[in-house]
């Protein structure tokens, strides 16, 4: 067992267990903190995939901003639901069944993907994926249009979020 296989198994188990606790925890703030652990596990996986840039962006965007948003939202809407009752719907077992069937179906489909058991190819020494990504994101025959649209989307989301939660003075 190579060291990175051991690390992968550890991190994957921790992430999946934390994800399970996110969706089954009774206390919503505990769910938010388990979500932080899951997202951190995914960041470690990105490092294993040699996509260091994505690992750092994951920590900044998800753990540093989105998780804090979740915790704030949970704290602001806290008095409404009991923390001790059941957090699940009346038909939660249908959801569990669908999730299991989905997982089985996905795995079955993935078995047919060519190169399912492939090991990672070597990365070429001269190419720096970060630099390539930067060049492609701003070149007009690269991914410039999605990049600009994503920025417009973020501005629209910012304005929309502020407007929706604006409290009009009475």
């Amino acid at each position: 067992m190579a060291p990175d296989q051991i690390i992968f198994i550890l991190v994957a188990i921790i992430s999946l267990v934390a994800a399970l606790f996110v969706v089954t925890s009774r206390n919503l703030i505990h769910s938010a903190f388990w979500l932080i652990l899951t997202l951190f596990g995914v960041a470690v996986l990105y490092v294993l995939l040699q996509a260091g840039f994505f690992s750092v962006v994951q920590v900044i965007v998800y753990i540093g901003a989105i998780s804090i948003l979740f915790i704030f939202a949970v704290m602001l809407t806290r008095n409404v639901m009991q923390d001790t009752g059941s957090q699940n719907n009346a038909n939660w077992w249908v959801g569990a069944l669908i999730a299991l069937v989905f997982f089985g179906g996905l795995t079955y489909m993935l078995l047919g993907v060519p190169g399912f058991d492939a090991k990672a190819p070597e990365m070429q020494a001269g190419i720096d994926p970060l630099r390539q990504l930067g060049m492609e994101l701003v070149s007009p025959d690269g991914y410039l249009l999605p990049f600009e649209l994503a920025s417009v989307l973020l501005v629209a989301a910012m304005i929309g979020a502020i407007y929706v939660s604006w409290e009009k003075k009475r």
Partner: protein
Amino acid sequence: MIPLSWYLVFAAAMFSIGLFGVLSRKNAIAILMGIELMLNAVNVNLIAFWRYRAVTGIAGQAFAIIVFAVAAAEVAVGLSLIISIYRRRKTVVADDIHMLEG
């Protein structure tokens, strides 16, 4: 040394757990957390395929960056909507927000 299958199965498992969260939780914020899990699983999938099948290209990475941006935007708007509904209706249980029902 880590075969591609491990990453794909991990992503599929996390996606299914997120799906379970979305389908069976009462609180609207908990549903959003399930959606976040699903988006993260998709990102892991994209980056794994980029690394194992098309390292010299950029498509996987660019797609993953856009997914990051979209997820952040969606969480911001979703949470502000939930807070706004909470202020008017004093509830965050998804089942009770059914004013548009026929």
